């Protein structure tokens, strides 16, 4: 696992690229997440809401950002993830998830890293989610668990 000393401002996390988001992806995510909002799985409902088609759950892409982070650090080091959904993610998007280290500080004796996380639709190049993850890389800080 990566340590505080290994990390520098300006470092990129290993990129996470997803499969294309299909209708099956959304059906599986609806079932597994419990988010049955028909706007993501029922084209008739989506059209009645003025959309051309169903679109992806924002939380699906946030889960991809979670994978980006937990591929990089132990989940118990993640203190906070705060994400804004900046645009709707359409069907067939392939999400490119990136992380950029923006801050590295020792605060109250704790080793804190701030990462700018983004999920971009590779088809349109548009950023769909953008936010900040705060990582605590103080040694033994989760050994109490």
């Amino acid at each position, binding site marked *: 696992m990566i340590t505080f000393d290994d990390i520098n401002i300006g470092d990129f996390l290993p990129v996470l690229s*997803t499969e294309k988001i299909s209708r099956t992806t959304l059906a*599986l995510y609806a079932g597994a997440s419990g988010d049955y909002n028909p706007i993501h799985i029922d084209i008739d409902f989506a059209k009645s809401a003025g959309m051309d088609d169903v679109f992806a759950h924002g*939380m699906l892409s946030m889960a*991809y950002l979670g*994978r980006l982070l937990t591929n990089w650090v*132990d989940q118990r080091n993640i203190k*906070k*993830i705060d994400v804004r959904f900046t645009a709707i993610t359409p069907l067939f998007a392939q999400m490119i998830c990136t992380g950029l280290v923006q801050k590295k500080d020792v605060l109250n004796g704790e080793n804190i890293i701030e990462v700018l996380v983004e999920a971009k639709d590779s088809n349109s190049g548009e950023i769909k989610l953008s936010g900040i993850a705060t990582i605590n890389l103080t040694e033994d800080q989760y050994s109490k668990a």
Partner: protein
Amino acid sequence: MLDTNDIGKVFDPITASVEKGRLSRFAKAIGENNPIYLDDATAKNAGYDDLPVPPTFLFCLKMDVPEPFENYEKLGVSLLKLLHANQSFEYFNAAVAGDVLTFSSVVEDIYAKKGGALEFLIEKTKVVNQKNVHIADLVTTLVIRNEIT
């Protein structure tokens, strides 16, 4: 339309069990391939009591009720107009398979922009486990697009 008198409204707490089968299905749905989320032995070797709840799955467990949007609909929100604008998770302790989590939510704020065309609802949720250990706080910002009818 939302009513600012609902600021401070406390929703009924939701209790949800963390089931291993559900974690597996979630892992599959998000393309997870990290063995710590898939394999009991790997999770235990990493110091977890059981398979860990991945970072955003707490949001899903919060919807583990027959009518997950009912609270919002009672406030006057239509699913036709609803979008998720912002989501944050602040973590205090790990949750794992077998835990029973309680989600206590309150309407933190309600406000409008663009002359009421957009309304915002901010909900804050505290998550504790069966031992009353604080697991996480969630803040959900929903936007209601009133210009679409």
